[in-house]
């Protein structure tokens, strides 16, 4: 029987966080070309296209034409920042089914240059709102406020403290400080202190939506990237060390009467991914978890089984998730959305940094990293959100 596995063969992270004179499409195309070159492949090898639609509607056809490729698989799953983990899961499935050999995922955003106030934005209600949204229009709940609702309930239910949440921001900043692209990026978007921060720094930054402080919120940057996923047959001849997709899981969460807001859809996607991969959370060396806010990481760490529900606060204390500390996985070793880049939909960078770690190329390299996890959370954690977990490993 043929080898039906899929591997990430090429990656590229667009290095600039403040992009002058390039469009989203151009960022996507340049990232795609570099990721293909990284793998030693070319445009004509691509036979499967995955796109989250951040450049506009009907992206399946507009992007294929713009890149000049002829995909026989097209997947435009668009579930916010988690789209790219869904895409990786789907690419692995399509490759296993023999429908695709070389899958291309891309992302491009000029959110910073466009001055999009994502977290506190003044989005007008749409002319034809969805029913659920039409019940929420008059209340002015910001995106940050949405996540703050989860944080407040988590504190109430489990005694989680602001200091414990702040620890997550401190850890990701420590990783960003080791990443020259992140440091340069923080400067480029106007952040003066690009070095380490303390728990006190986080807690004395202003409250944006209680209990979340400014330094608990992801930055807004430009950016983009690309990931190339190939069949085992193609992986034999690529330039890089293949990083295998070992398992994946997908789920959707939404508010319901009586639902526990402190549990996200990761509680469903995580076990599915671990089961398929045949591994357990304690074996994960690197956890790339969508850090839109500190509470996002805390909740998802519990949902994925790194800590018991409610024990996430004590779990993250004492720098457990730092790259150089044993006792837990290294968290968001590129600096994460909190301190490296967040152009609106960060999921592709979770895959890219996980691959860097498993190739041994991270700026906060975990010694001998063998297994990494990428968990994307799209939409809004306190209300409707999409979750996908991807587990990656090297030979």
């Amino acid at each position, binding site marked *: 029987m043929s080898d039906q596995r899929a591997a990430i063969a090429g990656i590229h992270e667009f290095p600039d966080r403040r992009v002058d004179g390039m469009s989203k499409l151009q960022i996507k195309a340049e990232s795609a070309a570099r990721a293909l070159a990284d793998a030693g492949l070319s445009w004509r090898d691509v036979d499967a296209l995955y796109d989250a639609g951040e450049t506009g509607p009907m992206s399946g056809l507009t992007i294929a034409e713009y890149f000049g490729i002829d995909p026989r698989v097209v997947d435009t799953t668009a579930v916010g920042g988690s789209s790219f983990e869904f895409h990786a899961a789907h690419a692995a499935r399509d490759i296993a089914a023999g429908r695709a050999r070389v899958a291309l995922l891309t992302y491009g955003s000029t959110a910073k240059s466009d001055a999009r106030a994502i977290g506190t934005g003044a989005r*007008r209600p749409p002319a034809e709102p969805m*029913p659920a949204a039409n*019940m929420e229009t008059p209340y002015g*709940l910001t995106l*940050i406020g949405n996540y703050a609702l989860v944080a407040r309930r988590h504190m109430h239910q489990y005694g989680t403290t602001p200091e414990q949440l702040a620890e997550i921001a401190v850890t990701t900043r420590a990783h960003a400080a080791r990443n020259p692209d992140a440091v340069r990026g923080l400067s480029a978007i106007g952040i003066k202190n690009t070095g380490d921060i303390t728990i006190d720094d986080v807690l004395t930054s202003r409250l944006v*939506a209680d*209990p979340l402080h400014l330094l608990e919120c992801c930055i807004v940057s430009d950016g983009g990237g690309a990931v190339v996923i190939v069949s085992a047959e193609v992986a034999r001849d690529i330039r890089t060390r293949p990083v295998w997709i070992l398992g994946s899981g997908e789920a959707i969460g939404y508010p319901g009467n009586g639902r526990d807001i402190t549990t996200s859809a990761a509680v469903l996607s995580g076990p599915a991914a671990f089961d398929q991969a045949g591994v357990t959370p304690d074996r994960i060396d690197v956890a790339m978890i969508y850090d839109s806010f500190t509470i996002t990481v805390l909740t998802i760490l519990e949902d994925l089984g790194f800590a018991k529900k409610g024990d996430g606060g004590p779990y993250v204390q004492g720098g457990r998730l730092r790259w150089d500390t044993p006792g837990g996985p290294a968290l968001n070793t590129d600096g994460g959305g909190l301190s490296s880049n967040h152009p609106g939909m960060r999921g592709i960078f979770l895959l890219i940094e996980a691959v860097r770690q498993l190739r041994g190329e991270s700026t906060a390299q975990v010694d001998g990293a063998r297994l990494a996890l990428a968990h994307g959370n799209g939409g809004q954690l306190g209300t409707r959100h999409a979750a996908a977990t991807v587990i990656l490993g090297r030979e």
Partner: protein
Amino acid sequence: MTQPARPLPSLDEPDTAHFWRATREHRLLYQADPETGDTVYFPRRHGVHTLGAAPRWRESAGLGTVYTVTVIRQHGHPYFRSRTPYAVGFVDLDEGFRMLAEIGGDPDAVRVGQRVRVGWEDHEDLSVPIFQAVEDSRR
């Protein structure tokens, strides 16, 4: 220059229009499955608990408990910016449904678990439910 106005829901959205029209009379409606009795919120035409029966409308007494809350201190919309800081949270109504709403009064005083009662902010075609703290009569 006119004062910025609160963004209001659409009265043309088919699933939720009945809810919003009832707010004009200061009635807080929710739905329940006629077979199982399970509450349905937000409103929908189709049954989400059973396939056959459409949810039935019921009227809430408007009393509930704060499930979680945040204080919004920064907002990009001119109306909401003019109102900061204000409290928004999920309220668990006694009839068994959970709704997002503003919670009036001192935003820093709102607590998880606090008892609240619905109040109304009147507009031309509808009223916006805004909850207010009440003494806990159950204790």
